[in-house]
């Protein structure tokens, strides 16, 4: 179980996130939607320990990790996957080194075995071990980024627009993979996306953010039924139903 309580994030003294609180159980998924600048990515970055000025509580299975550095101790159990896998993988490191380093940094044993397991869990064969990121397609690179998160046995994976750089058919494959990891391994996920259809398909609960705050939390059933209290949520739901020029 991951809990975020009373979270506040600032950059250079400017508050960008206030009063954010939510909990995600084992194998559950929580979605954050909102327009650019609404603070949704800052919440993820704060959870991963990538931002300095953070206040509030971030606990994983009851252990507060908010004072730990990124990747330190229990914080390692929160892993992040970014939008653009090309930008988040070292261009001169082969797949085996990308994954091997993650194992080493986490101080885990059975390096080779873990690498093979992680690759197979994301549907990449051992043949990929010697490849560089640029020798892989966008979808394969995103699978590698997910393998790197998986290899350290995370409690939760934080997904920042994980499919928006991908073609629609590849997007479906990655979403299926993430769903399978939730079910089979009980990994909790927090997903940031601008696409309500994706978040509604993937998550158990969806928080709508505006100006650094959560304005409301909905279930996918609420989204389908168009039950929104905040006007901005109604606008988002309307936009997600697509553009209609001939009514």
């Amino acid at each position, binding site marked *: 179980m991951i809990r975020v309580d009373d979270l506040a994030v600032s950059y250079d003294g400017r508050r960008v996130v206030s009063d954010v609180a939510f909990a995600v159980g084992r194998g559950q998924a929580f979605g954050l939607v909102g327009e650019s600048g609404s603070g949704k990515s800052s919440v993820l970055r704060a959870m991963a320990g990538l931002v300095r000025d953070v206040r509030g509580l971030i606990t994983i299975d009851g252990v507060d990790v908010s004072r730990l550095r990124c990747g330190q101790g229990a914080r390692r159990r929160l892993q992040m996957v970014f939008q653009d896998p090309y930008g988040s993988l070292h261009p001169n490191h082969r797949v085996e080194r990308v994954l091997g380093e993650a194992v080493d940094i986490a101080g885990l044993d059975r390096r080779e075995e873990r690498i093979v397991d992680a690759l197979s869990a994301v549907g990449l064969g051992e043949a990929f071990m010697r490849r560089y990121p640029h020798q892989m397609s966008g979808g394969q690179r995103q699978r590698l980024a997910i393998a790197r998160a998986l290899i350290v046995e995370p409690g939760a994976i934080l997904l920042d627009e994980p499919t928006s750089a991908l073609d629609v058919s590849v997007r*479906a494959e990655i979403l299926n993979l993430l769903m399978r990891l939730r079910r089979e391994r009980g990994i909790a996920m927090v997903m940031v996306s601008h696409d309500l259809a994706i978040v509604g398909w993937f998550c158990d609960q969806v928080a709508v953010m505006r100006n650094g705050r959560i304005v409301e939390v909905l279930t996918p059933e609420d989204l389908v039924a168009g039950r929104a209290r905040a006007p901005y949520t109604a606008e988002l739901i309307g936009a997600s139903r697509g553009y209609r020029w001939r009514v």
Partner: protein
Amino acid sequence: MTPALLDIEGLDVAFGDRIVVRDFSCRLSAGERLGIVGESGSGKSLSTRALMGLLPPRAAARSRRYTFDGATYDVAQPKALAALRGRGIALVLQDPKVALNPTMTAGAQIAEVCGRMRALELLADVGLREPERVYDQFPGTLSGGMGQRVMIAMMLAAEPKLLIADEPTSALDVTVAQGVLALLDEIIAARRMALILISHDLDLAGAFCDQILVMYAGRIVERIGASALERARHPYTRGLLQCRPRIEDRGRTLPTLSRDPAWSHE
């Protein structure tokens, strides 16, 4: 049959030996809207860039026929196509931050084409509330939605007959995108412009256009009326439609596309 504004037949585009667009054809009349959809590398952008003579230097193009507004052109002679750009065909790109000149104010870039007074009118026409203020702003200080409105104003300055919009809203927030689409809609209808909308989003193209071309690996694999999109026949189009996540299908495994090599040779 109304006379075609654009008539292109048998367009090929190649980088050396590698053919990236093969046998592209389409006809479009004033006021018509055509959507071109496909995934990255399908050739949807290159085929329309060839019409404007805007291919990368290493690319070569040829076609059996190319007429625009009654005159004949040759896609293999890109220099001559410069005459078409602006007043004939205008292009709106995905990201205004890249497409606008960062060292000139938004207004000055538009005024290059039509003068200050008209530029201010156009900025008001595209729904910018303070045209005088936006006129003096540099592109870097504009939001995504404002930047895209400035791009549209600049395109309108030359009064083109055909607008090519290449992923015009992909870089925008969904709610902002709705406003930009409504604006494009209004402008196209009021001026009876023809539109080619290039998008990876089948739903958007279906909602905005009359006809849809689906491209795969450089070829048009299906031509279909937008209203018949849900009844598409080609397995690729069907695959694209089915693999969209829908909230109603919560968590149910999404169908994935198995690509048939034969699609590239049909």
